[in-house]
């Protein structure tokens, strides 16, 4: 290779090197942010242990939180805030939940590798990706077409091949894939759809965040025991006792 050719090659490759190293720097930055986010969640869990009934979340949940690139699921404009412990708007009046709440909800579902999980309200696809790190198969449904299409493309691009996505009314669940070990209903509901309760396996768990888009007031954990009886547990995701003294 003569000098001229070498120079041309260098000129051609230099930007690639530059961008490649920039990409790496960005990826490192996101990885660091993700690690910090996980540390923050761990601290929040310790602070709220009295109410959520656990000292720490399942190891698998924390690994999933440390693995899934949350920044890929938020709009470019708010990507710098992707790992902040806060909810973010994703368009169409929807949000991607606060990481602490995502981790807590996932933990409450107690998902393992053999489980089939149904999610109603795919939104950005982030919660489905977290679940896919833990479960055997994730079925996610989204009623808002543009959101569902975007989430589907993103999950495909990131290589989540154990997630099936359907753009449809989640009220009737996904009968062909039922029963499910766990169901998460992140779309607003004025009541728990009876078809979803039917599609929950005996011994299965369902989680519903209750509140507004930016403020999860409580988490509703619905459990179906082996006899098919249903109870719910209302979990305040914060360390707060409503009484002072003397109680």
């Amino acid at each position, binding site marked *: 290779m003569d000098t001229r050719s070498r120079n041309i090659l260098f000129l051609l490759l230099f930007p690639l090197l530059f961008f490649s190293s920039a990409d790496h720097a960005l990826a490192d930055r996101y990885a660091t942010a993700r690690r910090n986010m996980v540390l923050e969640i761990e601290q929040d869990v310790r602070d709220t242990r009295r109410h959520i009934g656990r000292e720490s979340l399942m190891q698998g949940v924390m690994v999933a939180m440390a693995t899934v690139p949350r920044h890929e699921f938020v709009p470019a404009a708010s990507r710098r805030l992707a790992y902040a412990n806060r909810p973010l708007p994703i368009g169409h*009046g929807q949000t991607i939940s606060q990481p602490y709440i995502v981790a807590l909800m996932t933990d409450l579902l107690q998902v393992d590798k053999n489980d089939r999980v149904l999610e109603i309200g795919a939104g950005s696809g982030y919660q489905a990706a977290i679940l896919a790190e833990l479960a055997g198969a994730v079925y996610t449904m989204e009623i808002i077409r543009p959101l569902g299409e975007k989430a589907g493309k993103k999950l495909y691009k990131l290589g989540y091949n154990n997630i099936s996505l359907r753009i449809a009314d989640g009220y009737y669940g996904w009968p062909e894939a039922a029963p499910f070990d766990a169901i998460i209903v992140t779309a607003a509901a004025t009541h728990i759809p009876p078809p979803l309760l039917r599609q929950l396996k005996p011994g299965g768990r369902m989680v519903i965040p209750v509140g507004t888009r*930016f403020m999860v007031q409580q988490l509703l954990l619905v459990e179906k025991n082996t006899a098919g009886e249903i109870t719910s547990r209302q979990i305040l995701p914060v360390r707060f006792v409503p009484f*002072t003294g003397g109680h």
Partner: protein
Amino acid sequence: MPETKKYTPPCYSIALVSACALAYEILLLRLFSIIQWHHFAYMVISIAMLGYGASGAFLVFLQKHVEKKFSLIFLTNIALFSMTTVGCFLIAQQVRFSPEEILWDAGQLPRLLLLYLLLAIPFFFAANTVALGLIRYKKNISRIYAADLIGAAAGSLAIVALLFLVFPSTTLKLLATGGMLAVACAWLELKCAPRSLALLFALGSLFPFLFPEAWTQPAISPYKGLSQQLQVSGSRIISEHSSPLGLLTVIKSPVVPLRYAPGLSMNATGEPSPQLAVFTDGDGISVITNPGAGRETLSWLDQTPSALPYHLAAIEKALILGSGGGMDVLQALYHRAPSIDAVEMNRQMLDLVKNVYGDFAGNIYNRQEVDIHVAEARAFVSTTGKRYDLIQLGPLDAFSAASAGLYALSETYLYTVEALERYIDRLSAGGFVSLSRWIRMPPRDTLKLIATAAVALENTGVSDPHNQLILIRSWQTSTLLIKNGRVTAEEIAALKKFCRTRSFDLAYYPGIHGTEPNRYNILSEPFFYQGALSLVGNGRQDFLDRYKFNIAPATDERPYFFHFFKWRILPEILSLRGRGGIPLLEWGYLILIVTLLQAAAASVVLILLPLLFYRAGKKKQQSIHGKGKTLTYFFSIGLAFLFMEIACIQKFILFLHHPLYAVAVVLTGFLLFAGLGSAFSSHRILARQDRNPVALPITIIAFMGLLYIFFLSPVLNGLTGGPDILRISLTVILIAPLAFCMGMPFPLGITTLSDQTPGLVPWAWAVNGWASVISAVLATLTAIHFGFTVVILLALGFYAIALVSFPQTASGE
């Protein structure tokens, strides 16, 4: 443009601008209630009103030019007022302010600031118009101020009428048209030439109608219920109906049914029947339900906590308060109640269910069992002679806003101790009052209701209220029953069966055992049971003190049922900000505080700083003492006027049976008679120049105020059953002398000031504007904490301060 004779004040154009400005203020509150939520709207509009104060500061600098080019400046101001009413709103619509994110995202603050500035601009020009008149026509100050007040009175009536007739977006254009017509009017009044140009201005007043309709349509927040519903495939708006009570939007969703059934049991198997959604101001969903062919299709209506009373007793006569889309009426029909009175305040809502979508609704409001009444719920209960087996009141507020604590500032007379006493009084022997609320965690509304019920029962002579109460809950709603009589063993058996079959939790009934609550919808502790047990018995006060939210019963004197905030928990909640603590914040109350702080800070920036700079640049100065007195006088009367007006509106709401009538009659009455008082004040001052001219009006105000405190409530309570015309006439008669006198202190002060130190007139105008803004917030805060009687007392106190600081006494210094 020839300058005109100095002493022919343009009163008609000033009145027209004032009418449009007041109407614009109310319209903005409506528009921003649709776009965002009511209390953010309240904050934005309150701050925007500082445009009035900023006008005074601006004119301090401009006043020397006023003499030379009055007509040009005056006309330009009115024209700019007209143009900015629409223009600033259009720009404000483009500001992507999202109040939900304000605690998460500091980037929302500059947007909020921009909104304030934009919306303050029209008020700035409107205020300039009046102030220019005051500066220029020194001998006619009382007439100008009278025109301002009487114009505002007309505006308050006109906006109520307009909001019934046209949509808010069209109303906005009409107000801009009104502003431009004021330019034409001023052109003629100022005798500008050529006179024919006035016709051109009149034609130009149609300019807002050149804007496409879509531009002025309120861009509703994507996080409100209506926007969320419209995201669902196939959902579409099928009709809209506007009134001052709210914008009703009817939604059909044929692809994905609505299925609105709050509190539905987890054991329910049936799907809710087809429904149409009715959103009020883009939120607060109510549904019109299609009853279908057979009774079975409505079986889900028996699967909510509110169905309980039908299982405890045979309900012959039911009263449904706030019937809305008719779901509770349908529930009563499902349970075969033979006589149902449905009360709804919003006539348009009734019309939707009865006529517009009557066929869809199964014509339930035309059935012989159902009598519908257009009335405010509390007023209906106070005036009806009937007794009921069941009086039912569902959660009339939207879950989303309730869960965020946004109703804290909304006074409601539906959940006060006195209200519950009236409900109990209208029960037949063994009848039930049924009150359902959204569940909030930690509990707030439900516990406050049970405390209120216990006090109400005690006030009606019941020595053991704990024997007459039942509380159950699903995961989403709670239902409290107050019985007229002791709960029987049979009823307890029926109650247990009802809850067991639906997996609802027993939270309280007489004799409840500690192992019974918290079985199906499990909380970390049985908060509702613990609370109810303490609140119905001797431990009530201790529990109220120890509880971290304010759940002390609301009263008619302090009707803020939704005010749950206690200052002492603020640090704890703020420390939990990132850890799920934000929903614990009671937003509504904090917004009030933030509004007050912002108003104070903005006043310093917009009003006081410019005036201080002005002072620094002047060589001839009035003594600091004299200036301080002037400031104190105008500040005091600014506070006093609104304190008194707000207290009176509240006092008359119950008497006039409708908040809309109260605002229309009291506000219009106040402004009109104050205007007449202002016009009259010029005669007085000529007659009694040797004495403090505000002494007599303030003495009468004090006398009337004290009369109100001691005698108003008994008089109003005695006459509350009278016909509309009697109550409205009496209200006007009671308000007239007070308002007449309250219209005098401002023009008397300004007239004196313009004789002695005319340079201070804009300053007085600015300080008075500033006081008006903060007084609205301060009066609400005072009412929340101390009640409306204290608001009146404070108003009298401010008038007393005004009496001793009248600027005339400064003249000798």
